[in-house]
């Protein structure tokens, strides 16, 4: 028998660490959905949790996609840092992004 609680915990962890979910602003609503999901759902519905896992893992395993996601997350950081302080430095924010 599938242990639904373990599965939920595993996917919860994946969502929390996923840059893709972060960029799409999807973390909160996916986590809320998981939390509200009863532990006694049937196997057909477990497919939904599997689908989340598959999509998130696929995005993690695609280096090109990861790079693009990181670039846009940097841009978001630049925006929030400069919004708070228009003169804030941003050079250090680009260190982890390959700009060539």
């Amino acid at each position, binding site marked *: 028998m599938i242990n639904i609680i373990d599965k939920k915990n595993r996917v919860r962890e994946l969502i929390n660490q996923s840059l893709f979910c972060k960029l799409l602003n999807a973390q909160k609503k996916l986590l809320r959905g998981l939390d509200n999901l009863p532990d006694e759902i049937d196997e057909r519905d477990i497919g939904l949790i599997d689908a*989340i896992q598959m999509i998130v893992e696929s995005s993690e395993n*695609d280096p090109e996609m990861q790079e693009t996601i990181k670039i*846009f997350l940097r841009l978001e950081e630049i925006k929030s840092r400069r919004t708070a302080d228009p003169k804030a430095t941003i050079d250090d924010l680009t260190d982890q992004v390959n700009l060539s």
Partner: protein
Amino acid sequence: MKSYKSSLDQVVDYLEQRTNEMRQRRLESKEQTLEEIATNVGDLFRGFNFFKEKGASLKTIGKETINNILKNPGSWEDFLTQGAANAQKTVAEHMREELEKKAEIKSKTVKSLLNVEEEEQRLAAMRANLEAAEVLLQDRKRVLTEGQKFDTIDNTESLKNKGEQMATHRRESGQRAAEGFFANLFGSL
């Protein structure tokens, strides 16, 4: 023969009825949760598909935006607005292509008309998003042009104040534009 239920029987009946109602309610809320999750997973998949299909263009836009900001940090808002607008255009392009693909496949069956109609509604919503983005861009352009006018006029005190107001307006406008774009950038996927 007429029968009367004892008070205890009535309580048992009541409890049974309430339990059924609550079970029903729980089932309904479960359905709601599942539907919500299904929608969110669908959105996630569309986002994934978009990054798969348009990743290269998106990456170029992102890199250009960061490079421009590094070269000219003072104009970061303008570059961010421009970058977000370009990314939004990529979203629109992707949606159009997906729609065309679907229309092509689905035109083979009559019942697909309903699905296409749904997609058209999505597209209409996306157009509304793009129009809102255009308005923000126009506003941004207008503010920038007016800002430049003040730069060239002699710096009297009143003009300086107006210039400062304009700078604030300019900053707020840029912020609004950038926030709007980033908040909804992938929302229409």
